[in-house]
């Protein structure tokens, strides 16, 4: 049982290390899935805008992680 729990912990750790980064990425994905169509964005802008959102999440996370 311990081995299974350890394996699951390792598997979880593959995707989640900093909870705020994970949350930020998931929020971006939800926005892309549900808000982009409502905003009336041109189709060709949706992918690049998702990239910009994710880049901002990464930059903010790194900046915050570098603080003491």
């Amino acid at each position: 049982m311990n081995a299974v729990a350890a394996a699951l912990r390792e598997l979880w750790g593959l995707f989640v290390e900093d909870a705020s980064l994970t949350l930020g990425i998931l929020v971006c994905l939800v926005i892309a899935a549900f808000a982009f169509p409502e905003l009336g964005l041109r189709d060709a802008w949706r992918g690049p805008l998702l990239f910009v959102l994710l880049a901002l999440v990464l930059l903010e996370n790194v900046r915050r992680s570098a603080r003491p």
Partner: protein
Amino acid sequence: MSWAHVGTVILAAFLASLVEFVEALTIVFAVGTTRGWRSALIGAGAGALFLTVLTLAVGPALQRIPLASLQLVVGALLLLFGMRWLRKAILRAGGVIGLHDEAAIYAKQTAALARHRGGTPPPPLRAPLDRVSLATSFKAVTLEGLEVIFIVIATGAGGLLAPAAVGAALAGSLVILAGLGLRRPVARVPENTLKFAVGVLLSAFGVFWVGEGRGFPWPGEDLALLGLVAGFTVVALLAVAAVRRSPPQALAVRPARQA
């Protein structure tokens, strides 16, 4: 499907798998050197066998999932996985956390296993199986191998599983050959640079697959992948520069962790 896309898939799978194979080999070497090669190699072989069975069992099921759903789920997982690597590589490059050092991990693993043996020398090849060696090698190969499988599935999610598998197989062969040649862990791989590149590639694939899964038309179609790679590279380099420019007192040095 363009050659730029196929080439990026092979490169991403190769580089990402290379890191995982080096990590697995480091632990198997530490176990073999300290506690004897028989149990270490049997544990590693059992891990490889387990992964093969798992792949054969799960692989066909993946092909029944509609492509758009698979791309969306895999893209999301790839973003979580790739951006986690990229964040860590940026913080390491910026000096916020310590570099991942295979030589140090090897030394630590060897010391821990030697303590467990009570300082006795490694047993001969015909000695009875050692449960600690078996379990440690099995765990290392299984866990790092699971990451390789995920990388192959994720990078090859658009019907390019074969090129992704070729990239991973090349990486595995290279690491095993280097390990056999050197007879010690491959410590000279610039791991943070690799992880930086892999984080960029996997994050780019993640955004691309999510977009494909949601039906976003990418400007330039497959070539958009190269644009995303360039975009994440610029963002990551800017992040490293920003972290390095932070006042010295803001840089909290934290101990390095594996992976």
